């Protein structure tokens, strides 16, 4: 064991070590595991169950049939799972700042964000992943998509990009917690709520002002809607240029880089609560 300062553990190893510990801790509660996973599937399933009931009665939503709607929902949900699995501890941001827990993260020889993201974990997002991939698989044959290798790659890029868009918004707002102490309600009750509510619908059913807001103010359309239109050959009905829809997966990495820098920038404003 050489001295830590001269021979630090590489960043990726720090991350993996802490990740492993967080998961081991959570998997101790076997009894609750299965129920939590079922709960995870159902939590996000409410929206799809609603769409299903509406389509069972009226046949479509905004001209989209059940297969297309389920595909859109599946893309959104899988993207959501892809960021909430590694980043679910963002939930505890306010609490950690208020209790002065960042004191510890700042003096230990590992990345601050790495430590914060892995102080524990929540297994419920695994339920989202199961639900999302399940819906996606079921819908991919029901929806009219030509499954070429390019299409599959584009879908994977979409999920990664969509996950990064949602994650960046949450990470960025978490950065504000260093100054404001509390951003949970804004992040979860407002932003995440909008994402979960509106993310699974063709935006054509909304008034144009809202369509604009959900594309350019809160980039919800970039998570799943725009790329889903590309795969479903529906770019003709969009109110933005088709090339923008094609490029939608690129927004995620750009936003994430900005959010990451912003979070570390805001960390400088952290004041220990002294407890």
């Amino acid at each position, binding site marked *: 064991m050489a001295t830590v300062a001269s021979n630090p553990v590489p960043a990726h190893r720090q991350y993996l070590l802490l990740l492993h510990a967080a998961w081991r801790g959570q998997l101790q509660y076997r009894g609750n595991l299965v129920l939590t*996973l079922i709960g995870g599937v159902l939590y996000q399933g409410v929206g799809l*169950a609603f769409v299903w*009931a509406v389509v069972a009665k009226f046949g479509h939503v905004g001209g989209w049939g059940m297969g297309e709607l389920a595909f859109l929902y599946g893309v959104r949900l899988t993207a959501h799972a892809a960021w909430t699995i590694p980043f679910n501890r963002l939930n505890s941001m306010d609490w950690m700042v208020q209790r002065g827990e960042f004191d510890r993260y700042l003096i230990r020889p590992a990345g601050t964000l790495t430590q914060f993201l892995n102080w524990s974990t929540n297994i419920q997002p695994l339920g989202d992943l199961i639900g999302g991939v399940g819906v996606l698989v079921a819908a991919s044959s029901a929806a009219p998509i030509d499954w070429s290798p390019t299409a599959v790659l584009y879908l994977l890029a979409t999920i990664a990009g969509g996950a990064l868009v949602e994650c960046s918004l949450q990470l960025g707002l978490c950065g504000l917690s260093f100054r404001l102490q509390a951003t949970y309600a804004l992040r979860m009750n407002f932003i995440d709520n909008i994402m979960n*509510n509106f993310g699974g619908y063709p935006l054509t059913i909304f008034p144009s002002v809202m369509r604009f807001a959900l594309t350019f103010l809160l980039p919800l359309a970039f998570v799943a809607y725009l790329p889903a239109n590309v795969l479903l050959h529906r770019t003709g009905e969009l109110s933005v240029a088709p090339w923008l829809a094609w490029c939608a997966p690129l927004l995620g990495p750009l936003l994430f880089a900005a959010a990451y820098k912003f979070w570390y920038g805001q960390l400088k404003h952290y004041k220990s609560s002294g407890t």
Partner: protein
Amino acid sequence: MSVDGLAPRQRLAAYAGVARVQLRTQLVYRGDFLFRLLGLLVNIYMLRLVWDAVYPASGTATGNGGHRIALATQIAYVTLALVQNWLLNSGGMGFIPQRVREGTVAVDLARPVRFPSQMVWAQAGAVAAQLPFTVVALPFALLVGGARPPASVGAAFGYLLSLLPAVLISLLLTTLVQMVAFWTLETSGIFVIHRFVQQFLAGALVPLWFMPGWLRVLAEWMPFQATTYAPVAVYLGQAGVWATLGVQLLWCAVLLMLLRLMWWRALRRVVVQGG
């Protein structure tokens, strides 16, 4: 459990005390109200847009009973049902599990009033704390969604009357689900499952008149619809007052019995954790 040691008046005072403590606890966190309100309004607005989009151009659709449901009636339903569901379910679910986890349940058991009654009253206090917020939220909800006058004077009285058993059934259901903590200790999974079943079968998203056949039958035979669908359907003249009240009272009796039974079993399982 020396329940017999207390006069009814003393017992009532004790219950009121338990409720008051929970009411105060809830009011401490009123800062989040603005964003929770925005979250509710987002939900209502979204459902309104979806029903707007799927409804036939004629402005009416045929419900399960064969009668016509006007779009305005449907939107008024969604608005009232969501506000009501919000009132009943914002109080949180974590009461008993927390007491079991921390071992403080031992103190509750030593009190000279029955534990299940303490819990139901505590939950009632939590719901009562949401009342002022609901009063503030209602006009905004009606603005974002839509309002309709009650179908008749009788329907208006019937609505107010049916709200009482609706609240009681909701309190009993929540307490019953929380009691599972005595068996499993960890309950987050159960709660999410309950939330899904509750939201859907209560008719908070889709009224029973638009549910596909088998789902409607299932919903009719479950207690959840008595908490949300039943009162709103009475208000809009879509369900008879007396039949609804009869079913609600029946559920109150069944659930009370179930709570007794479950408590009787739980007492044999109590594990007091920690010191």
